[in-house]
């Protein structure tokens, strides 16, 4: 049945994608985040939707370009992403041999970065930015909504797991990705015109929270708390946001099973927790790999390679002062369990510095967007609010990511570039306003900002 629906859906979607480069691009992103193969069991399961729409987008770009095409400008975000891509290539080439994860993760990261580099070219108008946000929620949100509904229907008995065959296969990874999408759902709720759509996005946001609770992920719970507090702090409509956050928190208290409270309360006793101490041993080993290979690291997920783990598992690395009892250090290899230590082990100190610079740069660019929006005035309120929400999403990633190996997750890079796209759009808008004002007032010739123009206009 689902395969038939997908078949008929594709009969409509493929021709539509051939008519618009941006439409094909949206479908490229949607199939990447949704991983439709998870929901199909018949003849449509083996189709490589993502590759198909990626190829359509690229061929259309080459043949006829896109309507209202932008260009890739040199900016800190673009330079850092390019540097990350080049350095990743070198790390994949010079990493430990016989690593079955190396090529997989490397090629995935490259695909993500190619997708992201298309964004400044295609996202030149507000409706396109809005469409990309909806696309993210239709892709990632579906998983969260389904799991949230299952958790509610089972009365708290359903354990939310990750999405197989994707980068969010683990419940902790999945929960962190869901927390990141809550601010996007909230933005779409506040800025959608249709009441039904608004209601849909509000329900989505609440169900995403329910799914995070159902994952029993402690790291995601901490980042969810950060998102809740930040939403209230940053939102312009604080009363309404606070009300929604209180309702969501009350819902959690009411719905969550006793086992959930037991699990979350172990945050306080992490030192005696085998799961947590196991993570610390992985962090130590990752930093030891970086110390031995400071420039290129050990290659993608080298920590999970048997002989590399055996060599480094008892190394203290950068943390000789943290004692991990031998019983917590497993014989079998394990993941880095932190975005920071994942990049540190995989790409050495150089890759780690670029990764940190990307995260910090995204927050700084977001601040720049808010400043530009303030200068433009109420017409750019949407961009200021969106930049706030994207900044919160990335903050949730930085907090929740401290305990999960999710450094190469596509949505993170998409959000970073979305912030950059907003900056480009507002800079252009501000320039246009400046030019218009200059044209209207011949006395003004050298001013570059509207703030200056307003002041001069006041004295004129």
């Amino acid at each position, binding site marked *: *049945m689902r395969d038939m629906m997908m078949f008929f859906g594709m009969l409509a979607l493929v021709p539509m994608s051939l008519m618009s480069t941006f439409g094909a691009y949206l*479908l490229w992103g949607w199939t990447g985040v949704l991983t439709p193969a998870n929901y199909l069991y018949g003849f449509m399961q083996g189709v490589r939707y993502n590759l198909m729409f990626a190829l359509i987008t690229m061929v259309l770009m080459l043949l006829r370009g896109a309507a209202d095409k932008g260009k890739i400008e040199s900016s800190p975000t673009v330079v850092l992403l390019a540097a990350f891509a080049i350095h990743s290539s070198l790390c994949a080439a010079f990493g430990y041999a016989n690593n079955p994860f190396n090529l997989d993760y490397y090629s995935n990261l490259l695909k993500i970065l190619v997708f992201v580099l298309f964004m400044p070219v295609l996202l030149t108008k507000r409706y396109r930015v809005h469409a990309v946000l909806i696309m993210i929620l239709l892709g990632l949100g579906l998983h969260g909504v*389904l799991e949230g509904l299952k958790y509610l229907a089972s009365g708290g008995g359903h354990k939310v797991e990750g999405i197989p065959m994707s980068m969010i296969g683990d419940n902790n990874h999945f929960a962190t990705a869901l927390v990141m999408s809550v601010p996007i759902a909230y933005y779409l709720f506040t800025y959608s015109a249709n009441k039904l759509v608004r209601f849909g996005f509000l329900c989505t946001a609440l169900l995403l929270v329910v799914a995070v609770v159902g994952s029993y992920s402690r790291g995601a719970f901490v980042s969810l708390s950060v998102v809740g507090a930040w939403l209230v702090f940053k939102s312009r409509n604080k009363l309404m946001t606070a009300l929604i956050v209180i309702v969501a928190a009350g819902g959690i208290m009411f719905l969550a099973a006793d086992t959930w409270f037991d699990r979350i309360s172990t945050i306080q006793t992490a030192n005696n927790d085998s799961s947590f101490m196991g993570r610390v041993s992985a962090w130590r080993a990752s930093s030891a790999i970086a110390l031995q290979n400071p420039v290129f690291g050990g290659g993608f997920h080298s920590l999970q390679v048997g002989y590399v783990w055996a060599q480094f598992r008892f190394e203290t690395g950068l943390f000789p002062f943290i004692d991990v009892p031998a019983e917590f250090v497993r014989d079998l290899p394990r993941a880095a369990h932190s975005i920071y230590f994942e990049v540190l082990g995989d790409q050495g100190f150089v890759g780690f510095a670029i990764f940190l610079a990307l995260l910090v740069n995204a927050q700084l660019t977001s601040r720049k967007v808010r400043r530009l929006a303030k200068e433009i005035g109420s017409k750019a309120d949407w961009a200021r609010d969106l930049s706030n929400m994207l900044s919160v999403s990335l903050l949730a990633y930085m907090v929740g990511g401290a305990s999960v190996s999710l450094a190469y997750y596509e949505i993170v890079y998409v959000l970073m570039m979305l912030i950059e796209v907003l900056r480009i759009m507002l800079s252009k808008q501000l320039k246009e306003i400046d030019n218009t004002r200059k044209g209207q007032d011949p006395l003004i010739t050298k001013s570059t900002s509207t703030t200056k123009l307003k002041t001069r206009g006041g004295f004129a």
Partner: protein
Amino acid sequence: MEALLFTLDVFFMALLVWSVLRIERKKGVEENLGFFAFREAADAGKSQAGRVNKDA
């Protein structure tokens, strides 16, 4: 439930792409996303609240 939501998801995605096509194929049409249209201001108390953006 899963099949229904999945089908709805595919339908909404098709609707979104169709809205994009409508804007890009017909010059002069209002640059907004039809069913998924955005509005200008987020705060209900603001003068422009609830109004669909017409000059984006």
